[in-house]
């Protein structure tokens, strides 16, 4: 249970943050900016990991994961879940817009209520 406690805490915390982001309705500039900064950081970290593979290895050893490759895999899983949740939120927004559009079109092309006796 206590093996690799460090990575477990890190991964669970990232998942908790993702879950929180889904529940909190905060939209708009701040969230968009945070997401873009996050994406940039991710790219930067990936570049560092490519150039200096010993860095992820050192980090992995520091937080109690055997290999740097494992650490990257764990990170990938968290990033994947985050991406799924983000696209889910995006899809919901799109659906709401399509619904409004379809509804407006449906009512505009229907017979007017005044035409009823």
């Amino acid at each position, binding site marked *: 249970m206590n093996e690799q406690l460090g990575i477990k805490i890190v991964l669970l915390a990232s998942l908790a943050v993702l879950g929180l982001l*889904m*529940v909190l*309705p905060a939209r708009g500039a701040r969230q968009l900016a945070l997401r873009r900064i996050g994406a940039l950081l991710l790219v930067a970290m990936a570049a560092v990991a490519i150039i200096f593979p010993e860095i992820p290895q050192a980090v992995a050893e520091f937080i109690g994961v055997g290999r740097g490759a494992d650490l990257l895999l764990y990170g990938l899983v968290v990033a994947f879940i985050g991406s799924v949740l983000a696209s*889910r939120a995006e899809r919901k927004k799109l*659906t*709401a817009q*399509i*619904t409004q559009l*379809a*509804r407006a*079109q*449906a*009512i505009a*092309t*229907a*017979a*007017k*209520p*005044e035409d*009823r*006796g």
Partner: protein
Amino acid sequence: MTATVKSTSNTDVWLVVPLYNEAAVISEVIRDALSTFPKIVCVDDGSSDDSAALAEEAGAVIVRHPINLGQGAALQTGFDYALTDPSMRYVVTFDSDGQHRPEDALAMVERLRREPLDVVLGSRFLDGRTKPGFLKRIVLKLAVVFTNITTGVRLTDAHNGLRALNRTALDAVVIQQNRMAHASEIVALIGRAKLRFAEHPVHIVYTDYSRAKGQSLWNSVNILVDIVMK
């Protein structure tokens, strides 16, 4: 028909009927309801059969979604349509598969007219007439418990499609849940807006047809997910 029906011709009521592939029964459902409610709007949710044409022929106004959006979306479209009629005072949500009875709908509208209420919700469980199967009864009861806990609105039947609302209620009840979770959403919105509501015993006619078409119990899982994952 009783004398009250003739004295109030119900021209201030719109029956909102979400319609999706019910060609087998829709003509009869509309004709039957028209004798009580002269204004019926069928929201055709992209049916692939000739439901819409049959409903129109039977005397309903058709509002046609260009694509399938779901029953919740169809109800809200019906509300929006009814709101364009300045003489509308009440809206009744009514299923297209023949499991609701116009006399129950009429009694519910009469309660809105007489009593200080914004919403009257149909309930299968206020008396013993309706006979759902054993498993369905358990799931419906669980749905009631869940809705009572999450919305703070005490009901005996959370997922009954027969409802009567006045204009005040329509301002508050704006359905966002396109698919099946709208029933719980409506209850939640009633609670949030502190609308005055009552339940009214209704008889749901479970025919072989409505049983075959009816909600799969698997859908209760989908509804739960829709509610929890906003």
